[in-house]
Structures are given as structure tokens and as C-alpha cells.
């Protein structure tokens, strides 16, 4: 018995809408098996993962904090992936944006006032965009593979941050802990509803970015250009669109959003720089982008789901005593199932028995 793919005459709208849900369902089934193998009642586990982290209002705030960077980064990545540009170094752009954005509160802590925060956010975006411009430049100028260069730059950014917080940027009064000074109040991202929880402006940035990129991609010429060049570079060139400009645009837009996510995370949720400022947001955002079907509005929903897996992982560690790595396994499985289900959009799948010679002709008729 083997699988056979039969091309659909046109893409299936039904499966296009359903595939993220099927994928999520399959992940739940696979997760149940995983938990059963670990000797944990799957129902208890799922309650701990997906329900218990959002039963109280302050927990919803935590969800917003986790989802914000995921959505911001994934929205940018969706533009890249749509244009067939593979920026997988968002984690590095996140870190570099956070570093550049932190220049003011770390080096000039006395600088205070309402202009500080907007300036920091802007610098974060510029930092992220500049860092993302490196693989874009190397790709357009030297034809290097952007997947490998953008990923290598992740390690470089992380090591650079590590050096800063252990070296020149270390808080002199910090008892030798590898961290910078606490940001002063005018460098801290304001909380949305301080009465009920600590969610900050970062979540608003994420929603605004999603809407703006949605408008860009579906309502503006630039978005059309990106989609054309992404699906058929040759057609795009005939239409007079520049491939190189598009590479820079996609990389720098996603870099800027990752940088914004970085500085928002540091100035909002953490409040200072430390050796590790991201639990892999830049990589998880790749999953968010695909789960959201590369559509900015879908990405908002997907970001909330993946944000929940982070919270669920923490809850499961403290309640059930299982490694928070299980959350990462969930995330990986989810992406697998999403990609697998996407096949259903373009193909019908059927199982073929082991005697293909005999029934070859009736199958042909059936297909036509």
C-alpha cells in the first residue's frame, strides 16, 4: 500500500480554511499519546496546558505578553515567506534590536522624559532592520544562501549580547550578576491595565502591525509585487518588479518588526538586558507564521495559541513536574501537522493497493 497524490484542478477553499484546525486536532491526538507514554493522564495534562493558564484575568495578561513578540515577528516573517525569502534569523534580529534599543537606558540612564521611549522603540526597529539587511545584502550582492547566513547571525547576536551584559554594559552595582541596570521608569513600556495584570503596550504594537501588514499585502501595490515575485520571479521581472529591492524590503520589514519585538520585550516584560532575553521567540514565530497561514490576521490567532503553549509548559512543569521542553515538542509537532495538512489544499490523497499495473486504466478514467 502506498500514498498517491492527485492534483486538484484548483486549490480547495474548504481545506484552506480547515487545515490549521485539522493540524491542531492531530497535534492534540499525538500529544495525548505522548502524555500517555510519559505516564500522565492526557486529560489532566491538557487541562494544565490549555485551560489552567487562562482561567484568571491576570493570566490573560501573561498570555498577551507571550503572544506579542510571537505575533510581531511572525507578521514580518509572513511577508518574507510569501515572497519566498527565507529569513530564519529573526531570533538574532530580535536580540540585536533589543541591544540597539537599550543604548539610551543603559548608557544614558539620566536621560528621561516622554521622548525616551519612542526613541528607544525606533532605535530597536532600526537595529533589527539593519541586522536583517546583512543577509539581504549578502544575498543580493554575493548570491549567498540567506537561510544559512541569517541563522549564523543568530549565534553572533547572542554572543554579542552575552559579551555586553558580562562586560561593558554590566551594572556596576549589580553584585557581578551578568545584567545591565534596571531601566528607569520613562524607558519602561507602559502597562495597558495595571489594575488587572502586567500586559503592556507590546500587544497593541502586535495588533497594529498585523493590521498594517494585512493592508499592505492585500490592498497595496507593494504587497501585490511581493506576492507576484514570490510565486513567480520570472513573471515579476517581466512586470518590471525588482527582485533585489524586494529582498531588502522583506528582510528589513521583518527585521524591524523583530527588533521592535525585542526592545518591547526588554523594556516591557524584563526591564533590563540579561544574557538570555528570548525563549526562542524568533524560531517559534516561524511556526506561528505557518499556522496562521501566512495571513497577518490568522497569525494573531496562531500567536495566541503558541503563546499558550509557553504558559502551559511552565504550568505543566510546576504542577505535573514534567519538563517544560514538552511545550517545544508540541510546537514542533504542530508545525509538522500544519505543513502536512497544507498538502490537502492542493492535492487529494489516496491510498493505492499493491497491484498498480492491473487497475491503472480505470484510475485514469476516473481522474479525467
Amino acid at each position: 500500500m502506498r500514498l498517491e497524490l492527485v492534483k486538484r484542478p484548483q486549490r480547495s477553499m474548504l481545506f484552506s480554511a480547515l487545515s490549521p484546525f485539522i493540524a491542531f486536532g492531530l497535534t492534540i491526538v499525538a500529544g495525548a499519546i505522548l502524555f500517555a507514554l510519559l505516564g500522565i493522564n492526557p486529560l489532566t495534562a491538557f487541562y494544565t496546558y490549555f485551560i489552567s493558564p487562562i482561567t484568571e484575568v491576570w493570566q490573560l495578561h501573561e498570555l498577551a505578553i507571550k503572544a506579542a513578540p510571537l505575533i510581531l515577528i511572525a507578521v514580518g516573517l509572513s511577508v518574507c515567506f510569501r515572497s519566498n525569502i527565507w529569513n530564519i534569523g529573526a531570533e538574532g534580529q530580535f536580540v540585536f534590536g533589543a541591544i540597539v534599543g537599550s543604548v539610551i537606558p543603559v548608557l544614558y540612564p539620566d536621560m528621561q522624559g516622554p521622548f525616551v521611549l519612542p526613541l528607544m522603540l525606533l532605535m530597536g526597529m532600526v537595529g533589527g532592520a539593519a541586522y536583517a539587511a546583512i543577509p539581504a545584502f549578502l544575498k543580493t550582492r554575493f548570491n549567498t544562501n540567506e537561510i544559512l547566513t541569517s541563522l549564523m547571525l543568530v549565534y553572533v547576536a547572542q554572543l554579542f549580547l552575552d559579551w555586553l551584559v558580562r562586560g561593558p554594559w554590566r551594572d556596576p552595582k549589580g553584585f557581578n550578576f551578568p545584567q545591565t541596570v534596571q531601566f528607569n521608569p520613562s524607558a519602561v513600556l507602559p502597562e495597558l491595565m495595571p489594575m488587572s495584570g502586567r500586559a503592556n503596550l507590546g500587544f497593541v504594537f502586535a495588533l497594529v502591525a498585523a493590521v498594517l501588514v494585512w493592508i499592505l499585502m492585500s490592498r497595496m501595490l507593494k504587497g501585490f509585487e511581493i506576492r507576484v515575485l514570490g510565486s513567480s520571479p520570472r513573471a515579476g521581472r517581466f512586470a518590471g518588479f525588482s527582485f533585489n529591492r524586494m529582498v531588502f524590503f522583506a528582510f528589513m520589514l521583518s527585521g524591524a518588526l523583530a527588533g521592535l519585538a525585542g526592545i518591547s520585550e526588554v523594556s516591557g516584560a524584563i526591564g533590563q538586558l540579561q544574557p538570555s532575553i528570548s525563549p526562542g521567540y524568533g524560531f517559534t514565530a516561524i511556526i506561528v507564521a505557518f499556522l496562521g497561514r501566512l495571513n497577518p490576521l490568522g497569525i494573531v490567532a496562531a500567536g495566541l495559541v503558541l503563546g499558550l503553549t509557553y504558559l502551559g509548559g511552565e504550568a505543566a512543569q510546576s504542577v505535573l513536574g514534567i519538563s517544560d521542553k514538552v511545550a517545544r515538542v508540541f510546537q514542533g509537532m504542530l508545525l509538522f501537522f500544519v505543513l502536512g495538512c497544507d498538502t490537502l489544499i492542493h492535492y487529494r490523497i489516496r491510498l493505492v493497493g499493491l497491484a498498480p499495473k492491473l487497475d491503472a486504466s480505470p484510475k485514469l478514467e476516473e481522474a479525467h
Partner: protein
Amino acid sequence: MDMTVSILLTIATAATPLLIAAIGELVVERSGVLNLGVEGMMVMGAVAGFGAGFLTGSPWIGLIAAIVVGALFSLLFAVMTLSLATNQVATGLSLTLLGLGLSGMLGTGFVGLPGERLPNLYIPLLTDLPVVGRLLFGQDPIFYISIALVFGVSWFLFKTRTGLTLRSIGDSHTSAHALGIQVIKYRYLAVMFGGACAGLAGGHLSLVYTPQWVENMTAGRGWIALALVVFSSWRPLRVLAGAYIFGAVWIGQLHAQAFGIPVPSQFLSSLPYLATIVVLVIISRNKRLTMMNTPASLGQAFVPDR
């Protein structure tokens, strides 16, 4: 003299995992498939090798476990990209993400435990020869496997009919299919060979290089192996050269740190990654040459029409 020998030995130890993973990926890419999951398969091999070695007390069983787990893990990628025709780049990435998560979960209990180390070869008299003795006859078993793999794969690809078929699939899967070659079957085998190699490379890390389990212990080596394949223009002997250059960079920065060179250790640690970028730039800048060397069907999904 002893110093030089021991530096050469450590370079060989650092180069071996890169070499094995890259040789495996080279075969995969020659068949026209781009598997970006090397890092994930490698880290799964590392955790399987350590775990099996630790639980049974035999590093040899660890070695076999690393290979088997690497191959099985790559099967996941093969089913997705070959049978379901998913996007190879995205699927490879998800294999890496899943591998890093799964190995972290499986390895939670192994952190900090002392592992089993594969013994170095020892042949009386030969190994005791001055200078060349330890270099040629006194290394770990995986080193010898890695060298055998380079020449074996080189011979297979360029001197056997099956190798020719594999390369033809990588250059044009439609033509190969039209000639009656079972494209998907060949690719399944190639991907699993790559997985076994990546698993073995990971096993080298946790059974020879540093016999212990540390989360994410591959530290980007899988990605560097992918870059090595590009560097080599898809030729096995150049992978050998490239892996040793990178091994030297890796060891060089460690020695520089130990000697207390007045450069922050983080800068030295980032050298292998920066070197990768530089090498990619040098190799890829000649667009026509790159296009000539790259397997023409690389990364494209293939759905056989009947």
C-alpha cells in the same frame, strides 16, 4: 612536536562530526532534496547515543542507537516532503525545531551524568610510532568511519551506476522519472542515509567529543554542515577539506581563549559562525559557477504523474 600532534588530534575530533553530517547531507542534496533538519537529526543522535550508552554501559550500543535514531527521525522528513510533497525548507526547519525540543525533553534526566566514551584505537607498535602513530592509528573509531565515508561516498557517486542514477535524479527528477527510475524510492533512501550520518555525527559529540549530555549540544554544527555542502560544490573530497578547515577554526578559537588572548571569549566563540558566512560569500559570489554545481532539482517537490 607533541604539542602539534595533540592540536592536530583535537582538530580531527572537532572536524569529524561536521564531516559526517555534511557527507550525509551531500548525498541527500545530490538526490535533489534539501533537508534543513540536520541540526535536529544530529541533536537526536546525540541524545540517543548518550542515553543508550549510559543505560547499557556500552558506548558501542550508543553508537548504533545514534545512527538508528538519526535515520528514523529523518524518515519523518521523508514522509512529509516525498510522500506528501510539502515544502522542503519549512519541513526541514520544523524537523530541527522538533528535534531540539524532543531531545531536550528526552535528555532532561541525563543532564550532568557522566557518559560512556568510545575507546580510541590502539594497535601495539603501530600506535606507538612517533608522531604519525597516534594520528593514523590512535584515534576514535568514528574518525575512521568518517574517512571511509568520504571515499566511499565519492566512489559511490562517481564510479557506480546507482550513484549516477542518484545524481541524475538530483539534476532532473522529471527526466529520471520518464526513464522509469523510481525517484521517490531513491530519495527515501538518500534522506535516510543523511539521517543516519547526522545521527552518527551527533553520537560523536556525546560519545567522543564531550561524553555527556548538554541541551542543544550541537551548537549550530548541523547548520555549519549544511554550509559545508555548499562550500564543497557538492563534492565529497572538498567536504573533507572544508570540515578540517572549520575544525581548525573551532579549535583555534578554543586555544586562543585558553591562552588568554586579550579578545573577549564571546568574540572568539562567534568566529566559526562568522567564518561560515565568509566562506559562503566567497563560494557563492560566482553565480554561474554556483548554478552549474548545484543539483538542478534541489529543493523542488516532485509528485510523479503516473
